[in-house]
């Protein structure tokens, strides 16, 4: 049962609130599209519609997370975001290559989408050109990945946020603020199975207690990469989805739960977990859920 002594930051993006003490705001659910590269926009439109339907029903906010893997997809994907998803809907863009990130930021700005953008992500691999692009085209919110190749423990994750672990010139939090991004979400960087992957969960309450920032991770990645689960194919999707429960259970605020087509499984699981947390924190700490919380929606 968690209630943090540190004041908790709550950030809002286009009506979605992320952060705070456990039990106040529902866990924000970030579901990915276009993992394989080539976008299927018809399918995506339906998947996002279904995802938003779940939000309407259960209360947990949806963030579609758009993977952009090639330059040729940037404009198409941003046009899709601009034209096909609800006008106030926040979204995240999930890009690895620095060059693509820079081009996407420019275009997001051109299309007036930066206010709804969660930039996924800032990490130790940030280049000087990417820094400049972020200064010039600043997204409303960014996810910082607390990945520290030297130390995968919760302490190592805090180190990378605080001082960059001598891998970069600044702690990632300060660096991000200096770039002009004020709303920061911390991704605790789930590692490969067997490579201290549990530290991503353990780090959630530590980072929230020390920094008060909205925190979460993509713990499902660990399940997805667990080869031994190949012997349990029929249950694999449920195991993957259920891993997300760890995030609200340890005080986290958002979960990056993998493919958007897992929404049907993930949303009810997390809503149930949020209800459970709300019941005990209200009973024990007197913390009431927000009107958007599944406990308000469903009871």
């Amino acid at each position: 049962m968690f209630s943090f002594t540190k004041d908790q930051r709550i950030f809002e993006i286009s009506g979605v609130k992320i952060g705070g003490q456990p039990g106040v705001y529902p866990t924000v659910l970030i579901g990915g599209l276009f993992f394989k590269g080539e976008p299927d926009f018809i399918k995506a439109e339906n998947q996002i519609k279904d995802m938003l339907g779940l939000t309407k029903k259960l209360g947990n906010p949806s963030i579609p997370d758009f993977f952009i893997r090639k330059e040729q997809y940037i404009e198409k994907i941003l046009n899709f975001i601009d034209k096909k998803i609800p006008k106030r809907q926040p979204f995240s863009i999930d890009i690895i290559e620095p060059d693509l990130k820079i081009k996407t930021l420019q275009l997001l700005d051109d299309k007036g989408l930066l206010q709804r953008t969660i930039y996924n992500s800032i990490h130790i691999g940030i280049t000087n050109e990417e820094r400049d692009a972020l200064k010039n085209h600043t997204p409303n919110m960014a996810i910082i990945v607390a990945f520290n190749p030297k130390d995968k423990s919760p302490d190592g994750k805090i180190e990378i946020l605080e001082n960059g672990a001598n891998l970069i010139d600044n702690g990632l939090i300060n660096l991000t603020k200096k770039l002009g991004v004020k709303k920061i979400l911390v991704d605790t960087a789930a590692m490969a199975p067997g490579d201290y992957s549990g530290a991503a969960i353990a780090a959630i309450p530590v980072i929230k207690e020390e920094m008060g920032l909205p925190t979460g991770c993509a713990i499902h990645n660990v399940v997805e990469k667990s080869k031994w689960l190949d012997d349990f194919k029929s249950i694999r999707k449920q195991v993957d989805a259920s891993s997300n429960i760890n995030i609200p259970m340890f005080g986290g605020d958002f979960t990056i739960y993998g493919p958007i087509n897992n929404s049907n499984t993930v949303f009810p699981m997390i809503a149930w977990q949020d209800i459970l947390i709300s019941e005990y924190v209200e009973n024990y700490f007197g913390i009431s859920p927000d009107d958007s919380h599944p406990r308000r929606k469903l009871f």
Partner: protein
Amino acid sequence: MNLIKTSVIGSYPIDIDTIKHVKAYFKQKIVSWDNYIKSAVKDMLNSGIDIISDGQTRDPFVNIFTRRLKGCRIRDRTEIIDKIEYDGPITVEDQKFIKTFIPKNKHLIGLITGPYTLTNSCVNLFYNNDKELSFDFAKALNQEAKILQKYVDLIGIDEPFFSMGIPDYGKELINTIIKGVSCPVRLHVCGNVKNVIPELLEMPVDILSHEFKALPMLFDTFNQYDVKKDICLGSVRSDKSDIESVDEIVNHIKKGIDIFGDRIKQIAPDCGQKMLQKSVAFLKLKNLVKAGEIINGR
């Protein structure tokens, strides 16, 4: 006169490819640190240095140890939150790795950051006093040293904080680290040691290593004492990018020989080279080696 060996003090600059690490992370893969160690060691080998180190590439010299000792919590400065205890080998695996690719005629120095320096670099949130903390660090480091000696030719203890004053238990601290250690031990104290020379000369180590190039006044100060310890002479600066010419280094070593005679057993940079650009660090080592060859009459 025995030949003077060229050495390094410890750290060496490397270029870390952070994007490579991040890309591997997104694929849930791990990038080995071995290439960074190899990059540092190869530079030392290519420059012709006789006594090489692992380059302390993994971390600054304090964090290398505090990251792996029980009782420490890495924050902006390491915090001591529990009793300091050894939790298994810290630098040993890297030495084993280096031994697999260095020529047999090269020597390897195992590096240990001293307990007094660790104590003064950390925020003590657990112990009642610094002495108690220093001794627990020393006991933990002794366990590392005893394992380390099996894989290295000598051990270097780095105690820069001694330059600001050696506590009355300083000698006992060093004794604690080297208990059961039979390989030669070098104590490196950079900074201005003019006020602590008598204590340094009493230290239970084989070689004293100091920053003579940046602080040439130390020659005169040491000259006032009967030095019976062997000396590692700091001969190129670690805090400046200007590359000393071979002649300049030769003259510096000759000055050292005037004071210490054949007590000079090693020449090295003044300190770790981590703050220098890699290319600069390499050229400094190269000139150091050339100067050593001239002094040795090769």
